[in-house]
């Protein structure tokens, strides 16, 4: 169940603006979505291999160059699809819990 959600969140973060992994980590940690940071890297590489993400190297002021991720066109349409599914799920859950409360 967590599986698709984590992908959705990561892609949403990347959709907002180009980010490098540590930015994603701090956001996910804020939202308490991941426990260990290591989880992120295989996931990113999987999304990248699926053609949903791409990255470019950027110089950084502190330390070595960093990988900045952004969504590909495929990634954008996939994210839209994921969002749709998510909304459908939220609606479904809302409706069922709502009826329970009404009874």
């Amino acid at each position, binding site marked *: 169940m967590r599986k698709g959600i984590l992908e959705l969140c990561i892609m949403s973060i990347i959709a907002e603006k180009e980010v490098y*992994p540590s930015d994603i*980590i701090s956001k996910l940690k804020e939202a308490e979505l991941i*426990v260990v940071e*290591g989880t992120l890297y295989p996931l990113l590489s*999987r999304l990248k*291999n699926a053609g949903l993400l791409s990255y470019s190297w950027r110089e950084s002021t502190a330390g070595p160059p960093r990988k900045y991720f952004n969504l590909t066109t495929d990634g954008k349409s996939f994210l839209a699809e994921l969002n749709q599914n998510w909304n459908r799920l939220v609606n479904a859950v809302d409706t069922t819990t709502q009826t329970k409360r009404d009874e």
Partner: protein
Amino acid sequence: MNKTTQINLGGISFTIDEDAFKRLDLYLHELEAHFEYSDSRGEIIADIEARLAELLTENLRGSDIVTIKNVADAIKVMGAPSDIDDEPVTNQSHRRSEGKDGTWDIKTGKRLFRDPDDKVVAGVCSGLAAYFGIEDPIWVRLTFVLASVTIGFGLIIYIAAWILVPEAKTAGDRLAMMGHSANAKNIAGMIERGLDDLSDTLKENWESITKKKSDDNSRKFFMQKPNSFGDDVLVLRRPSLPAKIVQSAKRKLKSLANRCDDSQYV
């Protein structure tokens, strides 16, 4: 005092204590093993190394040398390999097919080996017994003997298995034979059992040796002057020595296994 080493982690240079270096090195090797079947192993590890470098820089807060605590903290944040779940769809099928072709990999996690510790001819039967969870290999042996006498196939199958099935040589092989995974705790447990056996054999033999000696000595003691008494005391004291060695080795093993557990390598 601690020896230090210079390392390049994710493009950043660190001066690192030797024990800290060993820990980091072990962690990275564990990760490599964890992502063994992933096509993007190199990339994932490089990303993780870069992040570890960042975490270490944060942890250092101006200090010059990376200590084991810095490393442990960074590893804790990154997570043990087993906590890093990846569901590589293509890779798992790859793993399974490889198991079928190359080794005798089975769903239970057990692997077929010949057991060199419990063998009559080549350990085929005891290996099979371990594989199928039969407690006493005698039943497998009897089956083979019966099959040889009645249908005649048993001997051929046995010889074929002798050639095809590898002998369990390493501790990891033996654990795989019993269906346990080869982690530090299991290996430590196995060594401990081995030490127990060793201690028992030593005790038995030592007692018989010393008994003989003290018998000789007591005979001498009665027949000769009492100055041989000193030797006798020495001989009598000795039996506790192997037990002591075994005890301390066991303690060290246990603490090692615990440390591995704490750092979540296992």
